[in-house]
């Protein structure tokens, strides 16, 4: 990293702060060893399959159904979170009520609570004799051991992503903006939809993408509550585990590669969205 013009080679490196070479080298090496090489291994393993075999695995009805279930329910859960999460953010930022700070802290529980714990707790709550399930059962609504259970678990784990992404943006939003809009004659609903929503939209989309990406890959909280019936309530990550336990490595790898590619696309989208948020907010 010494970038001197030709003519004179100086003895010292460009920055007085030492350690760039070693820290940069260690960073890249460690990143390579722990993250990049293992992920590359996954792709290399896929190339042991022919394209036909690869496609055959992915187009088998069980995989297709798992894809539909994973992405479909994750999407619904993320949409739910976008709506309810926005209300939560609005209430936490704009209103004052007793216990506001505690509820604010509570939003992080899905981040902090191990997924397996969340899984068994939700399953018990929504079982037919559970605290919530007992009220739903007479209405003919079954949650635990059905696709609805997957939805409940994914809403649980996705919530903080929306709230923690949108909250700072709404907090930073200049109050004068709304006052200006009102002084120009806008009704309150117009202020909300023409001033506030556009301002927080990039953050909301980022939060949505984060919640969605997390939901697609989620395993621990889902498997307890899902019932795990093939083609009905079997998610992709579970199918990977099942294939692995059957020693069908090729199948597991093919499914994993597809999941990984989709998460790369999501990561890229999230990055772009974040850049958009940053330019919007002017940070």
């Amino acid at each position, binding site marked *: 990293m010494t970038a*001197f013009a030709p003519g*004179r080679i100086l*003895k*010292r490196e460009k920055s*007085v702060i030492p350690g760039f070479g070693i820290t940069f080298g260690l960073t890249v090496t460690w990143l390579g060893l722990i993250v990049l090489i293992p992920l590359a291994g996954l792709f290399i393993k896929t190339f042991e399959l022919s394209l036909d075999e690869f496609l055959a695995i992915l187009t088998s009805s069980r995989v297709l159904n798992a894809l539909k279930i994973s992405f479909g329910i994750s999407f619904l859960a993320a949409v739910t979170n976008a709506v309810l999460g926005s209300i939560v953010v609005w209430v936490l930022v704009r209103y004052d009520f007793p216990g506001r700070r505690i509820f604010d802290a509570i939003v992080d529980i899905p981040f902090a609570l191990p997924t397996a714990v969340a899984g068994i707790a939700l399953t018990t709550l929504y079982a037919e004799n559970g605290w919530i399930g007992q009220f739903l059962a007479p209405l003919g609504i079954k949650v635990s051991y059905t696709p609805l259970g997957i939805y409940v678990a994914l809403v649980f784990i996705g919530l903080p992503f929306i709230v923690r992404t949108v909250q700072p943006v709404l907090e930073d939003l200049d109050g004068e903006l709304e006052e200006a809009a009102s002084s120009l004659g806008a009704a309150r609903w117009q202020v909300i939809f023409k001033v506030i929503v556009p301002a927080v939209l990039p953050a909301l989309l980022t939060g949505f993408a984060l919640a969605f990406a997390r939901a697609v890959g989620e395993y621990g909280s889902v498997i307890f509550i899902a019932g795990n019936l093939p083609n009905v309530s079997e998610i992709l990550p579970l199918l990977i585990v099942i294939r692995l336990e059957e020693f069908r490595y090729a199948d597991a790898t093919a499914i994993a590669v597809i999941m990984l590619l989709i998460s790369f696309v999501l990561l890229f989208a999230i990055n772009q969205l974040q850049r958009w948020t940053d330019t919007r907010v002017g940070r």
Partner: protein
Amino acid sequence: MKIDVNAVSKTFGTFRALDNINLNIKSGELISLLGPSGSGKTSLLRIIAGLEWPDSGDIRFDGEDALSLTVKERDVGFVFQHYALFRHLTVADNIAFGLRVRPRKVRKPEFAIRQKVEELLNLVQIASLADRYPSQLSGGQRQRVALARALAIEPRVLLLDEPFGALDAKVRKDLRRWLRGLHNELHVTSILVTHDQEEALEVSDRVVVMGHGKIEQVGTPSDVYDSPASAFVHDFIGESVALPITVENGVARVGERKLSINADGISGAARLFVRPHDIEIAQPGLSAIEGQVLAVRRFGPIHRVDISVPVDGGRTTIEASVPAGQEPKIGETLGLIPERYRVFAA
């Protein structure tokens, strides 16, 4: 310590920050690097300090090659623009930092360090603030801590990067007079970077005027003010009025009229530089430069008069200073005689 800067150049990407700089700094003097932002003055200071390296050229401290020395070995005291005080350390610990990080063999015993810190606190007149944290100090107080911290290591040269830039006008004035006093006491070679000409002219022994990565002029404050070496210096330091003129065969003209000024060595388009207070007002017809009064403003004992003067291809407005007694009327035609002036090729 004497510092020689020889043919130093530095580029950032395609931007030429320093272009073949040559400068000799005398031992014990206080010299200012004065220029607008982007003139390369801070880059030059950081190169002397060893915080940056030039692409070519060399720096000598008392004849010794400084570029082969680390920052540590150069023994420079650097005062940063935003002070860069250690926010987690008290004032006293900030000042002691440079003494405490020395290798055990050359480190002073703790009581000697404390004594030194106390001396410095007294020197910069902030003894009562020893146990405060930087966040609890005003800008001027932080500046004094930064200075004491830099002086603690008994540097061979003191480098100050816009030391008063972040302070308000009153504090700035007090502090720079105090700094000059301190320098008279300590006589440590000091280089001060500033974009404030008043500051540079008031405190320095010599001023280096820089623009676009080059040195425009080096001289005492009176030199650079009274005899600017270039149009840039004339324009940058003090107030200036510039009148476009043409010079042919040693004869200067403004518009159609012949000017009786000395324009030796210049030919073609040029500019006549005058300070507003060096313009004398005369009856029309007595001077080649004539114009109509556009506006008159009063500033205490003088009037500032805007005068529209016909020049080649149009008119230009120049500002003259007139004593309060003789107030020109708007619309009146006046003759203007430049008493002291410089002519530079355009």
